């Protein structure tokens, strides 16, 4: 035993949330061919791609139409108002990066005949109802990336 050396090592790096644990997508032109979506979003427009050939509306945005394989796609505006189709509130079991947000509301919004999931900001679970009118909200991350959320349209508006 006396010949065996025992020593402590220290790993002093401070690890930032690595890219592969960041839920938000990379959105610049160097990393994705749908960066236009995020450019549009920065200007307050929620958009997606529509196939010019078969006219199918595609969500999420694509670079090739899965319906007819055409790559002739165009950007179309989905509008800023949707209807709440379903919702819940995350009370326990949130992933890393969301833990401090708990509790937060998640919903599925119907917009331009598409169903998509979304965070619902500034909402309390007990105050939401299926069928509520929702309006687009654009959020910006610390590093300038953007993403969409929705918030409830108050009846007095």
């Amino acid at each position, binding site marked *: 035993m006396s010949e065996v050396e025992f020593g402590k090592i220290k790993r002093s790096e401070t690890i930032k949330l690595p890219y592969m*644990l960041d*839920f*938000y*997508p990379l959105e610049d032109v160097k990393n994705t061919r749908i960066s236009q979506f995020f450019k549009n979003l920065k200007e307050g427009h929620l958009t997606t791609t529509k196939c010019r050939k078969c006219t199918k509306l595609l*969500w*999420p945005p694509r670079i090739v139409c899965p319906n007819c394989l055409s790559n002739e796609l165009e950007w179309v505006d989905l509008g800023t108002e949707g209807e709440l*189709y*379903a*919702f*819940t*509130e*995350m*009370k*326990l*079991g*949130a*992933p*890393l*990066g*969301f*833990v401090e*947000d708990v509790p*937060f509301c*998640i*919903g*599925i919004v119907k917009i331009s005949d*598409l*169903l*998509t*999931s*979304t*965070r619902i900001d500034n909402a309390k*679970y007990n105050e939401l109802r*299926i069928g509520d009118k929702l309006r687009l909200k654009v959020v910006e991350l610390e590093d300038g990336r953007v*993403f969409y*959320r929705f918030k409830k349209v108050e009846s007095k508006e």
Partner: protein
Amino acid sequence: MRKVAIVGGGATKCGKREASWRDLVQEAGKAMFERLGNLSPKDVDSLIVGAAQPERFVFQAHVAPMVAECLGVTPRKVLARAELMCASGQAAIRYAWACVASGLSDVAVAFGVEKMYMPDMAEAQTNMTCVLDREWDGVNGLSAPPFFAMTAQRHMHEYGTTKEQMALVSVKNHHYSTMNPLAQFQKEVTAEDVLKSVMIAPPLQLLDCSGITDGAAGVVLVPAEDAKKYTDTPMYIVGSGQASIGNAIGNLSSLTEWVPLKMAVQEALKTAHITLDDIDIAELHDCFTISEIMEYEAFGWCDKGKGGRFIEEGQPYIGGRVAVNPRGGLLGCGHPLGATAILQALDILQQFRGEVLKGRHVEGAETAVAHNLSGPANVHSIMVYSR
């Protein structure tokens, strides 16, 4: 296509285990080979490993050769990993079945393993959140509990299903799991317990949800004509069905219609040449209480929207319309992703052999289905087994 038999298998106890990923593999491998006296690890020519997220849960890739190493098998036909998230184990069975049915393989092991307990549970939840379309759905904090919570909300909204009815699914499956020594949860729960349990994502409470689970299991598949070399009581794969509609939430036209499940059911019944009435045991994917209710409906054991009434009437108990999850289900047994479908297959084999405790034995059972869903219920996979 050759007819294929499952001749035996083994598994670990499931739960929050004081064991590493590879400990689980070794435990299940030993249990499997010890129960198959006439089979040596060297006879195995193919190994398919169902493993959903070893890269995230234990930071290990290239896991099929690791399992081969732990089991002492040296595959020379097919060695591969199968990933279909919550249905990864069934994906392994399907590959192994195809290998043997095609004539490529003569002895194939379908193995499944998942180590899900991590020191930081938020990290485990992170892993589960990238199962959905990470950039468009996961990014919203959406994972299985909130997705199935919204499914339950819509089912309650459209059909009047109640939380009390959902709780009864948990009561039933926990009741059967008390008689399953491999199960993670060994205690009876009452409807009141379910309704008083901590809220996860309304309307789903803790006991509406299956657990985070460590576990492993393996089964051995051979051509039917060779089955009697290994056992007097094999079970046969007699049919299957699988259907999917992408991964993103946007593919769903409704939360309360599981179109791919209906398609998979039709395919499974057709390929097995059976009707619903021939099914004695149904191991259904009860990841959440609402899932099982929607599965009664999609299989056709009750009308659409009447799944809550079906459990209220006791129809999915042994002796009712069909015995659903007499193993204890995912709610009672836990849900070690890659191992779940292997555990279902193994339990059905033990049901056919009469090796399970009397209180959960479906006497005289001839035909069983095992179902798994994966992702936001947009992939459904079914195997049909017969003795």
